[in-house]
């Protein structure tokens, strides 16, 4: 058997805003079925990194490859069609469309499904994300939990090979977070997941690997337990209440 390359590979990804470097030379390699948690203090560059990978932001340097295909120059819609999707930190929903219509767009234009095939897939995603009861509701009238779920469901509906999650559990209750954890677990099997979250137990439950970003740089990357015990992680979070509480 020929050795199979990684599913996703990022090399030296960099983003500058004016004179300020938000993401600095980050490398990241992921295999199918792998879930990676990303943590780091506020402003560490986590959201910016996900934006660079999905293509909503243009990188100043670095390359991205998915399944051996160079994605660096592709536009955002082309990357989504190519197999990368993100659930954004602030839900980006279509306020005047129904939940079902919100999901049909990524199913048709992202996953490139048609007609009844797309409808069936949308139904499946609705069930998976627990949104079936809200299928006919207008997205603009949803509560926070449902909006967060919809944002995740939209990313899932695009059938990505690489799924990027940006604080999908932030602001939810303990019980709701557990629902999200179950959901992420059910999505792991045939794709890679990168989950940015400030809630350690959520990442511990779902990710075998942990990456730490600080001031735009990747300072740690390894098995969850090893990184968690590393004293450099403690120093990054010195005085940050979130971490101390966990």
């Amino acid at each position: 058997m020929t050795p199979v390359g990684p599913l996703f590979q990022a090399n030296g990804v960099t983003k500058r805003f004016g004179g300020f470097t938000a993401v600095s030379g980050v490398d990241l390699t992921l295999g199918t079925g792998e879930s990676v948690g990303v943590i780091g203090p506020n402003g560490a560059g986590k959201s910016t990194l996900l934006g660079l990978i999905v293509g909503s932001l243009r990188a100043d340097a670095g390359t991205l490859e998915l399944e051996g295909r160079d994605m660096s120059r592709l536009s955002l819609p082309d990357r989504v069609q190519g197999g990368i999707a993100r659930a954004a930190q602030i839900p980006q929903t279509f306020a005047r469309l129904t939940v079902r219509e919100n999901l049909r767009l990524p199913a048709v234009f992202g996953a490139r499904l048609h007609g009844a095939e797309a409808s069936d897939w949308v139904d499946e995603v609705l069930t998976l994300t627990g949104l079936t009861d809200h299928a006919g509701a207008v997205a603009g009238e949803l509560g926070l939990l449902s909006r967060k779920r919809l944002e995740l469901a939209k990313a899932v509906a695009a059938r990505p090979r690489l799924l990027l999650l940006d604080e999908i559990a932030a602001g939810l209750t303990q019980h709701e977070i557990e629902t999200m954890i179950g959901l992420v677990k059910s999505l792991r099997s045939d794709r890679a997941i990168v989950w940015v979250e400030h809630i350690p137990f959520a990442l511990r439950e779902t990710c075998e690997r942990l990456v730490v970003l600080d001031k735009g740089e990747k300072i740690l990357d390894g098995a969850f337990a090893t990184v968690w015990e590393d004293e450099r992680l403690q120093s990054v979070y010195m005085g940050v209440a979130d971490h101390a509480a966990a």
Partner: protein
Amino acid sequence: MTPRAFSAGLLILGGALAAWSAMRLDPGSLYLLSEVVVIMILAQMWNLLAGYAGQISLGHQLFVGLGGYALFLAANNTGVPIWIWLALAPVLAGALAIPLGMVVFHLKHAYFAVGMWVAAEIVAALVLKWSWTGGSAGLILRPGGESMTSNPERVIFFGLAFGLVALVVALRAFLASDTGLALLGMRDNPQAAEASGVNVRRMHLLVFVISAMGCAAAGAAYYVNALYISPSDAFQMNWLIAMMFVTVIGGLGTLTGPILGTVLFIAIREVMTNAGYSGGTYWIVIGALAVVVLLVAPRGLWPAIQDLTDYTKRKAFR
């Protein structure tokens, strides 16, 4: 009733009504009604771009003039029947809209609006200057070099009225399709549309080309009826003002709004002109109406009426 049955019914009913009017009404009424339908089509096309794709163009009079001139030049210089050119004029305008769209869509928002206006002014200036377009004197419709033997208003009115019904039916079907859903999604949140895999740029271009074609078809038909075209008339700002005003008054981003707005627009104009007010006085009333509507019902009259009936319905059920 299924949407398909509704569309078929609308087409048959609209076609029958258009045919009946075309045969029975006097030429003067047909001429006025043709103008009403022309403005409805123009408004529908401007609305598709502004109300659904969120792109405000201040240069759509360009396509009205382009459609008219394409038809006059082609018909006058060939022996091919005018009806064929009537069908081909919008195709030509659509073809020209592709490169134009690729340039102007590099401009954002206000710059796009102004960019379109500049494009319209440039084309109008060229048509005014060139001798092969008739210059400032304009052109008289002489198909194959011979004067028209009969007035075309009956056939033109039927074509326009049936075309409007077909256009509304087609737009309804389009908005119900996946591509239409992408357009509605873009209107709500362009970034989210891109993040769903929708190529927003390509969609903008598609809608731009469709709206150019519709305006060119309406323009061509209008000037065939007039039998005469000149640059100062064909490329005038009033075309743009009419399509904008009736859309905004009636309801931007709705299919019924532009129709309702046009009826009001023409009613005000005719009543005031018949009452003896001179020239462009009616524009003042229409402008004032637009201001009032935007203050009282910012989304336009049709959405306001819908809210009202929804409200009374809900009350009745309680």
